């Protein structure tokens, strides 16, 4: 990555973009990469533009009302939630990644993939399971009252710390997976060097390992932040008001899509500024590692530390997975007869298939963008890539509408053209077809795929590219023969994250799916929208089980590719 490029400010993005575009129009070497990046960013920009154009008719009366009544509380809530979830996810994700990647303790191998499983747990599902457990009439509170009398203190189920915990337990895997990859590819040599210079393991971790993994940690935390800001399902289960619940209120309550779009544009702007700040802070560093991992030198934890590490990792799993799954199973058994039927096979099939195809598309696009940026680094590309990552920060339904409007316009344009030119009546080509759905997933989840692929790309030292070029390998040949093999872990990480994210995704799936394409997430929506939580437990568990499969497969493939993981244990 070109380290000395000045960082652009938000204000002159347009000018830079324009220059990047105009320079790319000139035929020259590699201009295809610019075209690719520009195309993909344009896909994401289309819905963003739709949302920002809502400002042509500002809905001041709703703004004034929100400002005068609920907005101050919302902002405080949103800030507390974002900071809390980001900090907690970073702590959980990094510490668990360090333990499973760099240390040796009993159960490490199983835990290293099991700790990813909460990724498959949708936040709104965990929220309901936690409410079931902690609520005033739930087993925990009842037990406490049974032990200490009816007036005893019980943990408040609907409090900010509980909501932060719920979101953290479903989102920390982003940080965990990306950071763990960074640790694995970083190798032990830095750690050894630090230890030789007299650092304790913990000091070495803070002084050397963590700073070197920073882009990956930051990437994971950014994903967590975007998910938290856009979340509606989890917070609304607790009736906790955030900025995003105000967006929904403007839309569903005040019937004002423009007001919802205007509020959303503020959310996106905030995320964009945070992205810029974060990248500015680390713009002048390089993170490449010249050699793959040294093997066989995991830090062996001794005595009580081994069991503490085990207990810590198991504790996280217990809260994030075992307890909620227990609650869901309890419900699912009760509703099994009513709920289960042959349609489940088709629901699972649709979920898996959409997840798989979507993951392939998003990973390919992420690879194209990341490689294009590597080949032709520059402010224009970087600006476009940053914009292309913003699709993840929008509340799902808002993005869905933002996508739907340009798709309809394009459909209309194409069908008018075909009608005028050839007298054909093709019907809708995009909307209501799988194509629209996959495009929408690309826009939504590009950020997820890109963070993983780009992180891995940074690990490949630029001088390898140079060497390959000198040996006469062209751009495509270099990508295939040099980068792809080295990127394997990053690509698998990206695929896992996107796959599971698509399976959990609701609003875009609902809005863009063709007739009859029902997924497990759609089924959960059907049941929960009228409060049938107990019946929703079965599809929720099925979704969880279906999500576990790719996670285990991808993790095994990743461990095999890295080579280090397995060999070190035998050695």
């Amino acid at each position: 990555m070109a380290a000395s490029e000045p960082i652009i400010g938000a204000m002159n993005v347009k000018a830079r973009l324009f220059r990047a575009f105009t320079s790319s129009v000139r035929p020259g070497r590699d201009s295809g990469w610019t075209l690719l990046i520009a195309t993909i960013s344009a896909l994401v920009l289309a819905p963003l533009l739709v949302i920002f154009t809502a400002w042509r008719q500002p809905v001041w009366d709703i703004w004034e009302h929100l400002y005068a009544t609920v907005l101050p509380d919302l902002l405080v809530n949103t800030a507390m939630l974002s900071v809390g979830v980001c900090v907690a996810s970073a702590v959980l994700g990094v510490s668990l990644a360090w333990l499973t990647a760099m240390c040796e303790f009993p159960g490490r191998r199983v835990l290293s993939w099991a700790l990813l499983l909460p990724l498959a747990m949708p936040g709104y599902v965990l929220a309901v399971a936690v409410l079931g457990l902690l609520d005033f009439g739930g087993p925990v509170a009842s037990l406490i009252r049974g032990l200490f009398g009816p007036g005893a203190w019980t943990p408040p189920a609907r409090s900010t710390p509980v909501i932060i915990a719920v979101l953290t337990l479903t989102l920390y895997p982003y940080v965990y997976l990306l950071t763990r990859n960074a640790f694995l590819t970083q190798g032990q040599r830095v750690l050894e060097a630090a230890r030789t210079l007299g650092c304790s393991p913990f000091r070495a971790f803070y002084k050397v390992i963590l700073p070197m993994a920073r882009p990956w940690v930051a990437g994971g935390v950014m994903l967590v932040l975007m998910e938290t800001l856009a979340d509606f399902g989890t917070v609304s289960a607790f009736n906790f008001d955030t900025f995003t619940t105000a967006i929904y209120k403007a839309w569903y309550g005040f019937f004002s899509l423009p007001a919802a779009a205007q509020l959303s544009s503020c959310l996106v702007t905030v995320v964009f500024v945070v992205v810029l700040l974060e990248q500015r802070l680390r713009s002048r560093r390089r993170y490449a590692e010249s050699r793959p991992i040294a093997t066989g030198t995991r830090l062996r934890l001794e005595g009580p530390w081994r069991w503490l590490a085990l207990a810590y990792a198991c504790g996280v799993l217990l809260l994030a997975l075992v307890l909620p799954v227990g609650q869901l199973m309890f419900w699912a058994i009760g509703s099994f007869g009513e709920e289960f039927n042959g349609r489940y096979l088709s629901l699972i099939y649709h979920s898996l298939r959409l997840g798989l195809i979507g993951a392939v598309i998003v990973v390919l696009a992420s690879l194209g963008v990341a490689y294009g940026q590597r080949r032709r680094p520059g402010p224009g590309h970087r600006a476009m890539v940053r914009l292309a990552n913003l699709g993840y920060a929008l509340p799902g339904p808002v993005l869905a509408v933002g996508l739907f409007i340009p798709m309809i316009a394009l459909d209309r344009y194409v069908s008018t053209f075909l009608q005028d030119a050839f007298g054909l009546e093709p019907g809708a080509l995009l909307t209501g077809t799988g194509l629209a759905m996959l495009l929408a997933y690309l826009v939504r989840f590009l950020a997820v795929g890109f963070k993983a692929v780009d992180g891995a790309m940074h690990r490949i030292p630029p001088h390898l590219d140079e060497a390959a070029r000198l040996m006469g390998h062209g751009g495509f040949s270099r990508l295939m023969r040099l980068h792809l093999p080295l990127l394997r872990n990053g690509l698998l990480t990206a695929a896992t994250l996107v796959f599971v994210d698509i399976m959990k995704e609701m609003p875009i799936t609902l809005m863009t799916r063709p007739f009859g394409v029902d997924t497990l997430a759609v089924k959960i929506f059907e049941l929960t929208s009228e409060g049938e939580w107990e019946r929703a437990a079965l599809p929720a568990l099925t979704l969880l089980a279906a999500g576990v499969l790719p996670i285990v497969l991808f993790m095994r493939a990743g461990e095999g590719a890295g080579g280090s993981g397995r060999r070190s244990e035998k050695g």
Partner: protein
Amino acid sequence: MKQFIFVTHFLLVAAFVGVWQTPADANELVVYSARNEHLIQPLFDAYTEQTGTNIRFITDKEGPLLARLKAEGASTPADILITVDAGNLWHAAEEGILQPVFSQTLQRNIPANLRDEKNRWFGLSLRARTLVYSTERVRPEQLSTYEALGDAAWKGRLLLRTSKKVYNQSLVAMLLAAHGEAVTENIVRSWVGNLAAAPLANDTQVMEAILAGQGDVGIVNTYYFGRLQQKNPNLKLALYWPNQGTGAGGVHVNVSGAGITRHAKHRAEAIRFLEWLSSEKAQNLFADGNLEYPVNPQVKAHPDVAAWGTFHASDLPLSRAGELQKRAIKLMDRAGYR
């Protein structure tokens, strides 16, 4: 690597070919529904069996469905919009998404206050939003009206669902229609002052909190109560019909309903379908699946529903709920009702 490229291409092609859809054929209806699949599917199946008309549908929330219909404009495949709550139906009509339909059958089967004055939408099932109380700690004589839930006697005993749910917005809109702005705001404030816990996310949580002893009385839709009761016949909760005195306004009722889209491609068939939905057989299918009341006065409610007793319902036109919804939300925000 060649394999990888091959597999990728194969998957992409398979994906696009597989999910490509065929255009609508003549003998069918297309429905956009905000009412759940498991509630509407049995109706569609019955209609298809009876008439041979195939029904294709998608479900989503009201907001996205309306946005989608607006964006699709004349090219929409949808013939019928089914949604829940009069406020949403009113809004769809205001947005120009629905077209007026003149049908003797619909006029006859559906009471005037449960359909649009301009015949753009029709209520198809009825639910009451009424009081629920703990039979252990409350005697029904202590209850009287929605307004009286603000009395000092209920301090720390009232439980409410969030004001973000449209059902509460419609309820407050109807109070607004009856009392005007200042009085209604005071009522809502007095409710908030009596809350036993911060407003909950749904009606079931309200009833579970009452069962657990967190509060004693709440406001819920009848079918949520029905569901709990079916699961546990010895439920220590009961419904109470408020505002039954003369001039007290009656119980707040709401509907789920449907309208025909402005650009429907199968208009005549769509009207036939709506008429069928208001008929005796379909009314029971429509209402009983969700323990609601049929709108057609000739049709008897499900026995479990009928067992809750009869009540005098508010006869204000439901479209008022839509007109006043925005003011109701602002009022609730001012009163601190989350």
